[in-house]
């Protein structure tokens, strides 16, 4: 390898490391992404142009064509995808990476396996690459709705493990040269593909992001293995970084969903995320959120309205909500409190509460004044309120609160609702607001949840 190429690889490696680091903070993430992309571009170009052997033009043309083709396809896909479809696209891309690794393994194996170590490297790359490929495709299909929900395979764990063990045995035999017929490498590919499918198919749709992250980590490992094959530090380090970072990320995602990785992979049989408490008549799924997600949403909003209710009083969270309000104000968010005339359990309950924490009177807005404003509101944060934001008052003539004026928070762009469970409020009726697709539920005691929120906000 030429010194120049080696130096460039070094540079690219550094760009990967720094890029990843920058990606970890909202304020610098964009820069990190661009830096890593730059490093990657540099590495690809210099691999091409600083190659030392004589290469026929034909091959250069082929490579150029492949790059052009791949580049255009990739860019188009990325640019045209809908915001909501991004995770499945990532999964698809990841599958392609895995396939690429598997193909490289195939080619190298075809050249004739060298010493056992090289052979081991190749077979490992092939197995991992192909299982990532098929697994990612299944994940993509599930998210996209192409693969219909969860497929139930009886005894799946046994079957899965059999396939896995079979693949490993085959790979070892190939590596040791015990099995030599090149057909077997295709069998190995097939086994890897099969395992990928079996692995992902039974996992519930809600858990797909975790699975994608896990597969992503595996692609990284496949790339690293390929790096070992070519003694290429860039691939090795880049791959390993992705491998270890991806794994940590997978765990972090599980934690954010309050699940263990084991539960995701083996346990939860296609169950959708279910909130605690008892939902009653109103149906639909509930979207849970975390303090840190809620914090980001609030931090990047321009106009926020807080709706306090009886739960704020029960939790005695008046001081924390004031702290949150001050913090957001400092960051340039326009923030107000919408006070419903019957929020709480006595007239003026919210006033007593907020006066105690010295909330500026000027920030308290009456229902009639704030209602027309909700369509321009970026985020509504409902804290321990229920009946006073229940759209049934407008929509459901059978409801006991029908006709009562409410805070029309459902017109806001995003809604975060904090309460402890899906339980009902004073009027004893379910609230369809919680099932609104714009609503994210931040479950927990108001004081604890808001304290977390404030802590997360301070990290940003």
């Amino acid at each position, binding site marked *: 390898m030429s010194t120049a190429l080696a130096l460039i690889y070094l540079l690219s490696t550094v760009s990967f490391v720094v890029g990843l680091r920058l990606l970890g903070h909202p304020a610098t*993430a964009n820069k990190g992404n661009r830096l890593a992309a730059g490093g990657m571009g540099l590495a690809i170009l210099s691999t091409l142009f600083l190659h030392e052997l004589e290469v026929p033009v034909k091959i250069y043309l082929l490579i150029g064509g492949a790059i052009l083709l791949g580049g255009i396809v990739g*860019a188009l896909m990325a640019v045209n*995808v809908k915001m909501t479809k991004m995770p499945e696209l990532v999964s698809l891309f990841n599958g392609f990476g895995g396939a*690429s690794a598997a193909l490289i393994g195939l080619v190298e194996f*075809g050249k004739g396996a060298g010493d056992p170590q090289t052979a081991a490297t190749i077979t490992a790359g092939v197995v991992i690459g192909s299982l990532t490929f098929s697994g990612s495709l299944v994940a993509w299909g599930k998210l996209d709705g192409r693969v219909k929900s969860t497929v139930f395979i009886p005894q799946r764990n046994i079957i899965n493990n059999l396939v896995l063990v079979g693949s490993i045995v085959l790979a070892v035999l190939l590596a040791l040269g015990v099995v030599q017929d090149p057909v077997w490498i295709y069998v190995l590919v097939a086994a890897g593909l099969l395992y990928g499918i079996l692995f992902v198919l039974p996992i519930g749709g809600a858990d797909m992001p975790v699975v994608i992250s896990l597969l*992503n980590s595996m692609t990284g490992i496949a790339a690293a293995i390929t790096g070992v094959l070519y003694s290429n530090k860039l691939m090795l380090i880049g791959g390993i970084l992705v491998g270890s970072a991806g794994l940590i*990320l997978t765990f972090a995602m599980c934690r954010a969903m309050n699940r263990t990785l084991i539960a995701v992979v083996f346990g939860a049989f296609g169950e959708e995320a279910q909130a605690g408490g008892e939902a009653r008549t109103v149906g639909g799924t509930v979207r849970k959120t975390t303090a840190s997600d809620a914090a*980001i949403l609030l931090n990047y909003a321009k106009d926020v309205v807080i709706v306090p209710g009886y739960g704020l009083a029960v939790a005695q969270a008046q001081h924390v909500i004031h702290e949150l309000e001050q913090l957001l104000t400092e960051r340039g968010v326009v923030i107000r409190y919408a006070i419903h005339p019957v929020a709480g359990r006595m007239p003026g309950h919210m006033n007593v509460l907020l006066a105690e924490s010295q909330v500026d009177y000027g920030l308290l807005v009456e229902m009639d004044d704030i209602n027309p404003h909700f369509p321009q509101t970026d985020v509504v944060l409902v804290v321990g309120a229920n009946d006073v934001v229940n759209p049934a008052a407008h929509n459901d003539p059978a409801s006991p609160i029908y006709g009562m004026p409410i805070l029309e928070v459902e017109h806001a762009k995003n809604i975060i609702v904090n309460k402890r469970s899906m339980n009902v409020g004073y009027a004893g009726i379910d609230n369809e607001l919680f099932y609104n697709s714009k609503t994210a539920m931040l479950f927990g005691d108001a004081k604890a949840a808001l304290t977390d929120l404030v802590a997360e906000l301070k990290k940003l």
Partner: protein
Amino acid sequence: MSEWTDFFTSNQDLIFVLILAIFLGVELIKNIPAVLHTPLMSGANALSGVVVVGAILVMLNADPNNYLILGLGFVAVVLGIINVVGGFAVTGRMLNMFKKNGK
């Protein structure tokens, strides 16, 4: 057995690099806010496309007449590049959602 100890001895550097890179990966990622999980996953995915370098090497080293290899390599490069280009582009789009006017 000795084959493997030999492997270890002769690839010591690689193994150190590996270990250090693992630790570095872990340190870089821990304490990430949950909202960045998806963009980060996407960014890491783009990085894993580094495998395309291997695919290019396959092509560069290929016998110009072995069409099987050329074909496989071609596909490998295309897929790898899609992974890289698409990956970074999608990550960029996701991150743009965080941008705030006047901030």
